[in-house]
């Protein structure tokens, strides 16, 4: 056990008390990774922690933070630290909750990390050094991990790590995480892999924390708290901290002068440590000449988006169907035989195992290839550097809704399947944009809804079916824009729509190892969060439809006698104003809450009709539907069918989407979203039926 001696902070504290003393800390040492976005921070984090990590909201914040254990060295006295991967941060003067977290953490006298490792981009060092100057003046033990030295070299930028360490007073370790080699520039360690050297440097810093010499720049936060501080304190509990108020405050002359002074310091350090052979035009620049051009840029963008959409729909679908067949065929048969051997076939136990648990796990597993593909595509787009270009190209179009250009991707993927689309909101760096996009995705009309559109439109509209189906997609787009505008002017009113100033990282070829590791970690996290909800819901639905209220045998009841059927009958009157208050239909909609793929099967089951193999040839099910809608709508089946379609489009897509939303934006916002979707769906359906009834 080492004793930590830390020099008391020399600047007057802005946190109240003067000369604060370090609280004794006996727990695990905390090392935080900080850095600008796109500097390879998460790649380094994954390399250091391996699989030992978990991603969760930071306590009290809607900010995703990955934390993991990093074993600095093994041997007889193994040393382990907790590694925290802070969100990408450009500055300690925060503009988003993500950035606020880093600022708050390094200024928190009680909980601040033992060491901050600044991951710095050697290829574009100025902005990393800007953040470094702020961290230095926050007087916290620091270490610089220099990444992307290979790219820097190809750009003609040669960073001298030793000179950098001398000029800043902060130890520097060169870490190209993509290659796994490196050398230490400050300190005694030599040999071994780069992570070993980083570990050695971290261990040394923790054992004997040294504060870097202050830059001498008067920090506007030293005498009076930064303006953003006061807004976040006064607006506690709201998301407005980095809204327009603090923008106005941080735009003061003093703040601008401080930022300029910091860049003066940065340029001085660069003059010592970086031999820049000039502004060499790189192959990244040549690619960008096409990819960001006014005409070819959007063409490339649409082609890439089309590729993502095709891969997440056409390519994933057969994989999903195959897994589904395997689980409902051989696996269920085997389970049935196994239960038969112990004399349980045909009992409630076999029902629970086969129709409840195996079906539930099966539903969950069919999402695995889809999600893996989605995560791989996200990683590819992000790591290759293309995503920043896509954000630039789509910026103008998405801005109309108050969203950044990157939000285009999850919304597009949503038209294939909402579940990976929700996961895709992670490409948005700002938590408020993630939240808004995750709330909009359910209104994108996924392909599972399409089969129901086709069936209903064929049954009720005959030759006009194609127009009706197309109309549903138009309604979907209108809903996204309308709900987006409403969200922007209400709940997310203070989300700033900032001008686009976006650093374009150089293009890189993503490595397979980084790709597979990233996919594995994200997939495991999804299964952990979504698994319980999906398996649980399928099992509960099976249970409800197997328990009879009229005293029949368990597991062999007709749908209308089951608890499920009774609930559907109780719910049905709610749809009377929309013209489809029929228990078969409300039961189908309840099933649709679980999965839209099962809506047609549920109808077929409740009418005891055969499920049509092709939605465009509805057969006897079509006759049943026509009769039911004719009755429930008092002779206006057309408007009722349209109302039903609109309801189907707008209400909660499926429980897997709910599970994914809970994973990304938390339970409270997910619940609010579900309620909002039901209200919108019901209101629209009633409006469509009531207006349609008058004219048709």
């Amino acid at each position, binding site marked *: 056990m080492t004793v930590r001696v830390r020099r008391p902070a020399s600047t007057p504290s802005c946190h109240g008390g003067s000369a604060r003393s370090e609280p004794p800390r006996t727990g695990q040492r905390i090392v935080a990774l900080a850095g600008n976005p796109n500097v390879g921070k998460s790649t380094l984090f994954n390399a250091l922690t391996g699989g030992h990590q978990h991603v969760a909201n930071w306590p009290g914040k809607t900010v995703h933070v990955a934390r993991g254990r990093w074993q600095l060295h093994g041997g007889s006295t193994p040393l382990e630290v907790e590694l925290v991967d802070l969100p990408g941060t*450009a*500055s300690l003067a925060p503009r988003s909750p993500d950035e606020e977290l880093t600022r708050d953490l390094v200024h928190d006298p009680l909980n601040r990390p033992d060491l901050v490792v600044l991951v710095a981009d050697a290829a574009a060092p100025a902005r990393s050094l800007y953040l470094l100057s702020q961290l230095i003046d926050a007087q916290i033990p620091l270490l610089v991990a220099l990444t992307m030295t290979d790219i820097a070299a190809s750009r003609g930028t040669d960073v001298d790590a030793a000179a950098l360490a001398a000029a800043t007073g902060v130890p520097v370790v060169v870490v190209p995480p993509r290659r796994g080699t490196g050398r230490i520039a400050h300190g005694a360690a030599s040999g071994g892999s780069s992570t070993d050297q980083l570990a050695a440097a971290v261990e040394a810093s923790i054992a004997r924390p040294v504060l870097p010499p202050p830059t001498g720049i008067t920090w506007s936060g030293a005498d009076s708290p930064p303006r953003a501080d006061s807004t976040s304190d006064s607006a506690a509990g709201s998301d407005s901290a980095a809204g327009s108020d603090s923008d106005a405050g941080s*735009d003061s002359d003093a*703040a601008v002068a401080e930022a300029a002074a910091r*860049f003066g310091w940065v340029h001085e350090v660069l003059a010592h440590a970086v031999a820049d052979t000039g502004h060499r035009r790189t192959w990244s*620049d040549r690619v960008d000449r096409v990819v*960001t*051009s006014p005409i070819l840029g959007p063409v490339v963008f649409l082609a890439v988006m089309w590729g993502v959409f095709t891969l997440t729909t056409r390519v994933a679908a057969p994989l999903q169907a195959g897994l589904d067949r395997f689980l409902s065929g051989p696996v269920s048969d085997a389970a049935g035989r196994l239960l038969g051997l112990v004399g349980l076939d045909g009992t409630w136990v076999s029902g629970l195992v086969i129709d409840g648990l195996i079906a539930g796990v099966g539903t969950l597993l069919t999402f695995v290839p889809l999600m893996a593909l989605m995560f791989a595509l996200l990683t590819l787009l992000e790591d290759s550097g293309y995503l920043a270009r896509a954000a*630039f190209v789509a910026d103008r179009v998405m801005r109309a809704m108050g969203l950044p250009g990157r939000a285009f991707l999850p919304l597009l993927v949503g038209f294939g399947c909402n579940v990976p689309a929700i996961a895709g909101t992670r490409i948005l760096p700002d938590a408020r944009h993630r939240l808004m996009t995750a709330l909009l995705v359910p209104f994108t009309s996924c392909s599972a809804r399409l089969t129901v559109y086709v069936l209903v439109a064929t049954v009720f509209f005959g030759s006009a079916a194609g127009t009706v189906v197309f109309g549903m997609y138009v309604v979907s787009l209108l809903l996204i824009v309308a709900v987006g505008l409403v969200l922007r002017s209400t709940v997310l009113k203070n989300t700033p729509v900032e001008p686009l100033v976006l650093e374009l990282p150089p293009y890189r070829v993503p490595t397979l190892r980084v790709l597979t590791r990233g996919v594995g970690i994200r997939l495991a996290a999804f299964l952990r969060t979504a698994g319980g909800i999906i398996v649980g819901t399928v099992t509960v639905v099976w249970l409800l439809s197997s328990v009879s209220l009229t005293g029949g045998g368990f597991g062999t009841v007709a749908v209308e006698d089951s608890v499920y059927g009774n609930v559907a009958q109780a719910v049905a009157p709610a749809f009377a104003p929309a013209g489809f208050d029929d228990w078969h239909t409300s039961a189908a909609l309840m099933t649709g809450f679980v999965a839209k793929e099962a809506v047609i099967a549920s109808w077929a089951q409740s009418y005891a009709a055969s499920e049509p193999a092709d939605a465009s040839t509805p057969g006897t099910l079509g006759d049943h539907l026509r009769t039911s809608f004719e009755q429930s709508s008092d002779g206006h089946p057309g408007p009722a069918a349209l109302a039903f379609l609109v309801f189907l489009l707008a209400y909660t897509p499926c429980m897997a989407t709910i599970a994914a939303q809970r994973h990304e934006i938390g339970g409270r916002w997910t619940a609010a979203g579900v309620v909002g979707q039901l209200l919108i769906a019901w209101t629209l359906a009633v409006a469509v039926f009531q207006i349609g009834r008058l004219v048709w």
Partner: protein
Amino acid sequence: MRLVSISDGDSNSDGDLGARPPRHIQVDGHGETHRLTEMGFVPGAALRVLHHGPFGGRVVALGSARVALDRATTRRLRVAADTR
């Protein structure tokens, strides 16, 4: 020294990046000035317009970094005209 908005200038799309002397920036107006300053758009820093993007956007070289800007921002960044 004549100052022009970078939305007015042509992009230096051909040849070597270092072929012309870099231009020096000044940020005009209010709002977002702090953010631009924090990105490194400080008076005296060298900037070169590399590409013209859709909707009046520009990709500029700021030191060794490449930064994409929308039209509104490019209008507020003024640079000393080329001194060729």
